[in-house]
């Protein structure tokens, strides 16, 4: 099974700063890491490879420095690394990013399964994974917490729901996004680190992936961020805890007490 794992390099801190003029994230001066959810995607890709064979290719769209993230993935055991990088991609929103990654995956061509983290910790949209699937016209299941079965033409996954989970079977090629419950990411190995040092990273630009110019970067991004602000902190309130049944009981009691119902 040939697997493509899409990863993103993100600022190490969860306290991201925002540029008040452009309303975009300030990335300068902040240490970069692989988006933590993508670490689970890499791990799952490696586990599938170890079980049924095949290759794992890591893919990222980003500035040249994003190479570090790809090298980290190689040190964990991924086989190939692809960096999609071009000034023309600057300012991409989730739609343009999904389009660009999908074009790159088409270029890689030989894939059965695409794995993404459920979301990136900087933007938190969770849109890029499904966006790629849509663009490639392959089935997609988000929030996967377990892969139950892998066969030549299909995989069977457990999708996490608020209560319990759904078991879904889907044909390959397909795309899944994974949650942290799915596995425990490994640490690198010395041989992996040595390999990462020497690895030849494939770099693709807009022309290489034959991207339509009106679908990439700022131009290809319909999202307009009008304002970003920290929401005012809500004070007071009372947390109702317990299982769903207890919570419902407690809540209806309170609603009755306050004569709402």
């Amino acid at each position: 099974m040939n697997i493509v794992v899409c990863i993103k390099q993100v600022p190490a801190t969860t306290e991201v700063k925002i540029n008040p003029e452009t309303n975009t994230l300030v990335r300068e001066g902040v240490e970069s890491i692989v988006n933590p959810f993508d670490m689970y995607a890499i791990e799952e890709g490696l586990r599938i490879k170890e079980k049924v064979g095949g290759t794992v290719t890591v893919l990222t769209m980003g500035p040249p420095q994003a190479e570090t993230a790809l090298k980290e993935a190689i040190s964990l055991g991924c086989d190939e690394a692809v960096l999609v990088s071009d000034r023309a991609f600057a300012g991409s929103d989730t739609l343009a990013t999904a389009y660009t990654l999908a074009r790159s995956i088409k270029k890689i061509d030989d894939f059965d399964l695409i794995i993404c983290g459920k979301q990136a910790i900087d933007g938190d949209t969770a849109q890029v994974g499904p966006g790629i699937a849509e663009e490639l016209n392959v089935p997609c299941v988000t929030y996967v917490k377990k892969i139950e079965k892998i066969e030549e033409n299909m995989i069977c996954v457990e999708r996490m729901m608020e209560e319990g989970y759904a078991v879904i079977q889907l044909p390959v090629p397909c795309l899944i996004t994974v949650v942290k419950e799915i596995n425990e990411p490994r640490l690198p190995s010395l041989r992996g680190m040595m390999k990462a040092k020497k690895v030849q990273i494939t770099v693709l630009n807009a022309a290489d992936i034959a991207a339509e110019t009106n679908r990439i970067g700022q131009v290809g991004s319909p999202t307009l961020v009008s304002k970003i602000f920290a929401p005012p902190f809500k004070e007071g309130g009372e947390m109702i805890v317990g299982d769903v049944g207890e919570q419902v009981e407690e809540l209806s009691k309170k609603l009755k007490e306050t004569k709402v119902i």
Partner: protein
Amino acid sequence: MNYFLSEEQQMIKELSKKIAEEKMKPVREQYDENEEFPWEIVKALADADLCGLYISEKYGGFGGGVLELCLCVEELCKIDGGIALCVAATALGTFPLLLFGTEEQKKKFLPDIASGKKIAAFAVTEANAGSDAAGIQTTARKEGDFYVLNGTKCFITNGGDAEIYVIIAMTNKTKGARGASAFIVEKNTPGFSFGKKENKMGIRASSTRELVFNECKIPKENLISREGQGFIITMKTFDASRPGVAAQALGIAAGALEDAVKYSRERIQFGRPISSFQAVQHMLANMATKVEAARALIYATAKTIDNDPKARATKCSAMSKLFASDVAMEVTTDAVQVYGGYGYMKEYPMEKRMRDAKITQIYEGTNQIQRDEIALALIKESARSK
């Protein structure tokens, strides 16, 4: 200080630190408390390719030497001085094979050690033969294509958990120290069993057991080198392995220092952090200077050995263990002092470091014996140069 380590050596440090922080730190108290053998950490170290750092690539290792081993042991011991012994004591059991094993012996045993599948041990000590190793009573009698071992070894690190043991036994008692030989004995060989497991002051995650040989029959191919070479092999093994003990001591001390500096900046007394008191500052300054001196001595020793593994390195090897282990004892004692009453409590990682540090002054030759060896080397050198 810059020791101009290679990129690969930097990687070893970085990776070892990662494993120590992420895998060992969360479980170190549990292992100390329960005296369990840290198999999950052995697995983590094996997955990271850190078990065969000093074994050549030909046998599945990384192809490094004593320095690579020391860098790894130091980083691991900054977090826990006991767990790391699964690797360090395996090295002690592996050096006889690396230095004196035949091609067949190396091919048979080294790959499993390099991959971390099996761990090793080295046994010379007996109840009545500690510092006076030449007093060992365990015998190996030749019978056709076999040797038959009888006797009991005590205080053997990794005992019971290791698969591969190097045993020093007498093949000819009339020859004294020249009558000892070294043998490889595998776990589960009939006649080979394990006795008492010790309950220890420190390094409690490391197992220390008795090995009992009762008409234990091993193939004659398991003899290392020739009959009579047992103590030569032991001495050269210690030359290579003592820097590893020194690195254990260094790691324990460096970890204590790092935590003590941090703590001194956080602990407020008399309205100020205790790091603002000169008495505390000077204690930290002395600790740091000793740690750095130990590190410099160990790395230089390791490089000397790696540069010419066949040459005798008894003097510098003994010096590095002597110095670093004394430093570890002093620095951990002072680190407890910096922590005050909290340092004495099990809730903080300091009292354990003090307990762990003590062993480094004792095993692989007590520090009294190290001084003997250094002095003997000095006298020999002087006699030779006149």
